[in-house]
C-alpha cells in the first residue's frame, strides 16, 4: 500500500486532516506508544498563522446529527514559535511532516511558505485558503480567479510540494482546483468543514434562548454527515485536474476510505473520526493493505 505523493514516499495512503490530531499533545498523553503505533502516513499540522491566535471563545463544539460542528478559530502559537518549539519535536515522528498555513493575504501566505521552505523537517506545505477575505467576507479560496492569483504569489516562495486545501463553501470547487493546478499547486486537498450553525439548546425546563451556541457564532460541520458532499466534490475535482487529490470528509471506515480512493484520490485523510477513536486511521490503513 505504499504510495508516492508529490515525490514523497508514504507507507500507506492515510493521513490526518489538519487540526484534528495534535501529535505533541498525544505524545504527552500516550508516550512512546504513539510513535510505535503512529496511525498516519504523514502528519499534517494544525493551521499555523504568522501571528499567534487565541482562537474563538468557548463553547467551541456542538454535536450534530451524524457529525459535529466546531468553531475552534485556528488557535496556534504563531509561525515563529511553531518553527522554533514544535517543529523540532514533530521531527521525531517517523513520518513526513506537512505544515498547514493560513494567511488573509497572498503576502502573508508567501511569507509563511517562505519560512517553511527553509526548514528541512517540512516535507510539504498545505495552504488553508478557507480564511475569509477581509474585504468580501468570502473564503479567499472560493473564487477561482482570486485563488489563482494567491497561489501564483505563493508558488515562487517554496520548492516544496504545495497542497492547496480547497474550501467546500464555493459554487464550483472543481474550477477552484483547476485554478490551483494552473497556478502551480502540486496537489489539492478537500473537503474542509461546511459552514454550519448551531442554535443554543433549550435550557432545563424548556426555556429557549435564541442565538448561537458557539462562541464563534457559526462553525464548520464535519463527520459522516458531510461524506456525501465530500465525495461529490472529490469526484468533481478528480475529473478536472491531473495533480494528486487528498480526499477527506466523514471517513470512518476502510469502506469509506475506498469510496474516495475509487474516485481517484491519491491519499485520504481522517478528521473527526480520530476524536471517537484515536487509532482508527491505523486500522483503516491496515484494512486497505489487506
Amino acid at each position, binding site marked *: 500500500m505504499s504510495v508516492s505523493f508529490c515525490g514523497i514516499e508514504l507507507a500507506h495512503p492515510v493521513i490526518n486532516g489538519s487540526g484534528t490530531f495534535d501529535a505533541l499533545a*498525544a505524545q504527552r498523553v500516550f508516550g512512546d506508544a504513539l510513535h510505535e503505533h503512529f496511525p498516519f502516513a504523514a502528519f499534517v499540522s494544525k493551521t499555523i498563522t504568522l501571528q499567534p491566535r487565541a482562537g474563538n471563545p468557548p463553547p467551541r463544539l456542538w454535536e450534530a446529527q451524524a457529525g459535529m460542528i466546531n468553531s475552534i478559530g485556528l488557535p496556534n502559537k504563531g509561525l515563529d514559535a511553531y518553527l522554533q518549539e514544535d517543529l523540532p519535536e514533530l521531527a521525531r515522528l517517523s513520518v513526513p511532516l506537512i505544515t498547514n498555513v493560513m494567511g488573509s493575504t497572498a503576502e502573508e501566505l508567501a511569507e509563511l511558505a517562505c519560512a517553511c521552505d527553509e526548514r528541512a523537517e517540512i516535507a510539504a506545505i498545505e495552504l488553508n485558503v478557507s480564511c475569509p477575505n477581509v474585504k468580501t467576507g468570502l473564503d479567499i479560496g472560493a473564487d477561482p480567479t482570486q485563488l489563482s492569483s494567491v497561489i501564483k504569489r505563493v508558488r515562487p516562495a517554496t520548492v516544496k510540494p504545495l497542497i492547496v486545501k480547497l474550501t467546500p463553501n464555493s459554487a464550483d470547487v472543481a474550477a477552484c482546483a483547476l485554478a490551483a493546478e494552473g497556478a502551480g499547486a502540486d496537489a489539492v486537498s478537500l473537503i474542509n468543514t461546511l459552514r454550519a450553525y448551531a442554535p443554543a439548546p433549550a435550557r432545563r425546563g424548556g426555556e429557549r434562548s435564541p442565538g448561537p451556541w458557539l462562541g464563534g457564532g457559526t462553525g464548520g460541520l464535519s463527520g459522516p454527515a458531510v461524506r456525501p458532499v465530500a465525495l461529490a466534490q472529490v469526484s468533481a475535482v478528480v475529473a478536472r485536474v491531473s495533480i494528486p487529490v487528498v480526499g477527506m470528509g466523514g471517513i470512518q471506515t476502510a469502506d469509506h476510505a475506498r469510496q474516495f480512493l475509487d474516485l481517484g484520490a491519491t491519499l485520504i485523510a481522517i478528521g473527526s473520526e480520530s476524536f471517537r477513536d484515536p487509532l482508527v486511521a491505523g486500522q483503516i490503513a491496515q484494512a486497505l493493505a489487506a
Partner: protein
Amino acid sequence: MSTCISGLPAALTPFGRRRLTVTANDRLGAYRVLRTADPDGPRPVAGQFAMLAAVERWGGGEDERPFLPRAFSYARWQGGEAHFLLEDVGPGTHRLCELAAGDEIWLLGPLGRGFALPQSARRPLLVGGGVGIAPLAIWQDALLAEGSAVALSVLLGFRDGAHAEGAALLTNAILASDDGSVGHRGVVTDLLDSELDRDAQAAVYACGPPPMLEAVRALCERRQVPAQLALESGMACGFGACFGCVVPTRAGYVRLCVDGPVLDTGELERI
C-alpha cells in the same frame, strides 16, 4: 500509591480506546454507578477522567446523537474495576445509564491531570456539588489510603434527597441540600464558609456545577485558601486533538482535557 496522589504526572494513557465489559450498573438515588472491568488499564489519579461510549447504539437514538464519546471522572478504582457516577442529562448519559452487566463500552483513559496533595500543613477539604462528587470519592479513597489525612473534611451539596443519596460514595460527608430535605438547607458553600471560619489551614478540592465552583473560587481567593477545582467543558476527543474543550485562564485558553480538568484557583480569573 504515592504517585496517585502526589501530583506527579500520572501514568501514561494507553494509546487507543479499550473495549471493556460492564460489570454492574446500579442505581444510587438519582444517579447510577457504572462499573467496568479494566484489567489492562492503569490506575487513575483522582481527578482524571475517561472518554466513554457504548459499543452498541452509540450514534443512534431519536435524533442520532450521541455521536462523540463523553467524559466522566473516575469515581473509584477497585480491584481492576473502574467506577463512574452518572447523571442522566442527555442522550449520551442516558445510553450509558441503561447499560447492564455484560454490555460493552469503549473507554479511553485515564486522561487529564488530577488532584495534587496539599502542602503538608493544610488539611484537605473536599467540596462537591451534584454529580461533581465523583472525583472527590476517589480522592478521598486516595487520601485515606495515604493515611496522612486524618483531618479530612467532606462537604457535599445536592438539589434534593434523591440526589443526596449519591453522598454514599464518600464517607463522613456533611450535607447541604437546596430543598433542605437532607442536612443544611442551602448551598454547600455555606458549609465551606463555616469550615474555613473554624480552621482556615485547609486545602480545598472542589468539583460541581460552574456557579458552585465560581463561589468556591471567590471564597477561597478572598480567604487566601489554596483550592484545586475539577472543571467541566464539552469535549470531543479528551486527548488534546480538537482544541474544543478550552476554558479561559489567566494564561489564556487552555485545553481542559490535557491541562485540566483540575486547575488551581490561582490560574483562574473566574469561572
